[in-house]
């Protein structure tokens, strides 16, 4: 028969081993997360300096084939180009999050928005958005309509919107919707209105 004091020692040792194991596992995960963050080359957004404002998003609902306006609060910078980018980024965040009324791929983002004479907006989307975009006439059209209508609702002075992908012109979004043309905001507004 094992003496009682040895039993207690073994039990304490087992507890110590188990606790150490958990500690080492957590330490390992923490290190891995640090390494992953260190390896992420994506630029980190600068903190937005501005005030919180309500913006209107033209949200596409693929299932119903309609558009609905949604008002959300967002912190918007004062500079027009950065402001336009932030508005579109807020819209895309709605589509990237799940469940989404109009799913876009993870990593979809707006690189930048350039304003020309205050009337033309050149929107530069990232490659991830088109790579992961579903192919289809309606879904591609809805992405264009949603981006352009959201921009023009919040920046009414805009007359035309041109879309680039990673700084380059592209024929279509994912095989269907035309990206070569610059879109008239009034034409897009009429189309979205009919779909509301």
């Amino acid at each position, binding site marked *: 028969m094992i003496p009682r004091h040895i039993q207690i020692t073994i039990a304490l040792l087992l507890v110590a081993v188990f606790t150490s194991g958990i500690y080492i596992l957590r330490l390992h995960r923490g290190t891995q997360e640090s390494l992953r963050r260190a390896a992420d080359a994506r630029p980190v957004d600068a903190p937005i300096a501005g005030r919180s404002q309500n913006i209107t998003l033209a949200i596409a609902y693929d299932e119903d084939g309609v558009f609905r306006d949604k008002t959300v609060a967002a912190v918007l910078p004062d500079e027009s180009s950065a402001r336009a980018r932030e508005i579109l980024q807020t819209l895309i965040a709605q589509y990237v999050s799940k469940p989404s009324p109009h799913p876009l791929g993870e990593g979809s983002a707006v690189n930048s928005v350039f304003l020309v004479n205050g009337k033309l907006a050149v929107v530069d989307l990232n490659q991830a958005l088109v790579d992961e975009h579903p192919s289809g006439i309606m879904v591609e059209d809805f992405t264009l309509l949603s981006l352009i209508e959201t921009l023009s609702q919040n920046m009414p002075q805009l007359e035309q919107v041109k879309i680039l992908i990673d700084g380059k012109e592209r024929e279509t979004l994912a095989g*269907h919707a035309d990206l070569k043309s*610059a*879109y008239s905001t009034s*034409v897009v507004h009429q189309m979205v209105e009919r779909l509301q």
Partner: protein
Amino acid sequence: MFTGGACNPVWATVAITLLLLNSGTASERQRLAVYAPQANFVLPVSEIGGTTYVGIFELLEPLSAPELKVVGTQWKLRVPDSGNAGKSIEADFEDGNATAIVRGQKILLSAPARHENGRLLLPLHNIGNILKPLLQTEVVFHEASRRLFLGGSAEEAIIELRRGEPSTLALHFPAAVNPAINQEGNTLKLSFAKDPVVIVGQSGPLNDKLFTSEDYTESNGTATLTISGSAPLLASFAAGGKTIVVSGAPAPQPTAPPNPAATSIMPAPPGTTKPENAPTTLQPPSPVAAAPPAAPPPFLIVIDPAHGGSDSGARITPTMAEKDITLSLARRLRRELQARHIAVDLLRDDDSNLSFDDRALKTNLERPALFISLHAEPGREVGIYTPALPVALSTTMDKKSFLPWQTAQQAFLAQSTALAPRIAESIGQREIPIQIRPAFLEPLQSIAAPAVAVEVPANRHGLRIPEDQIAGAIAEAVVVWKADRGAAR
């Protein structure tokens, strides 16, 4: 005998010359021209191991309603028996085997049958022996020039030299023709790619003051008549396109009275049925007032099977791409329209990749009555899309004047918008859910004709709605559209 290093430059020059000549020949796409009472069309042929092959299904599809089944290496082809309604004629082929059984009879092929990318390829040399029992019709095959005449479709032209001061040369054809005409110096070249024209007789000198010689050749699916003269020549259509009159080109004058008997050559209206794009007809320099042929343009439908080649379109399943579904549906729609006696052209009849500009260009050159773009995607409804233009144009466009490329559709927008409900109505009769809406869709904006896109829902089994139902419904809508158009005129 050439030996030694001194001769190497000579051999190198010869080798380079041969290489260049060879590459020039290889760059020209080899094709087979098929002329039949049902349709005239052109097919690509393949050179494999020194033997020229053609896809038998692609050849039969515009002529009949063939079915092709494959079990392992065995291929079973079935075509409707034109002599016995409801019955069919069968032919058996085996991949890698040079023996075929057609209508119970053994046929020895000059090379083994081949299976390539889901197509059954047969040696072109044997195509006459195979088609005759299958179609039970007269088959005349000009193998060297790859021109296949079925059902007595060859049309013999007569050349008449009318001597005088000046002389004229009249070319008489049994039916209206639409050759590509090219003038170089004192030579006039007429190329018949779509017309089943043959000229029997001797080529050679004409012993005339104006016309020195005529030369008829056939090559790569095209018949070419070359007329040489001592001065620049001018070709004019007469007798509703059944006669071409060649005469000396008059000296340039400020104005010239139009000739009521003959009209000078303009880019002719689209042909009847031609899967390959028509060549551009060149107008010889002439001061004669240009006037198009009097006959109204035929009612031609251009079908665009969307995507193709490296552009697969939507992935319906990992192994099923939109481009394959659209091509299959386009072929079915072609059959349905042809069965209703409507001329059809497919922008692609294989897995080729056409740019949007190419699609628009090919379509606009044909001046069709309608343009239908076919798409497929996972979904539940049939989508009928009318073109939406990205900019609002305040001016009204004249259809007959030059149209801006990016917004050429503007002049036809009202017709496109009116066409969509017709198709929806026809599809709706089959109790299929439909939606109609405008879309910023390529290449509709650049199409100078009434245009719509039809997107058909698909799932892992293929189209959710049987192909024949959709194609039949669209074809019926086109028939109604055509009737309305005729009434409007």
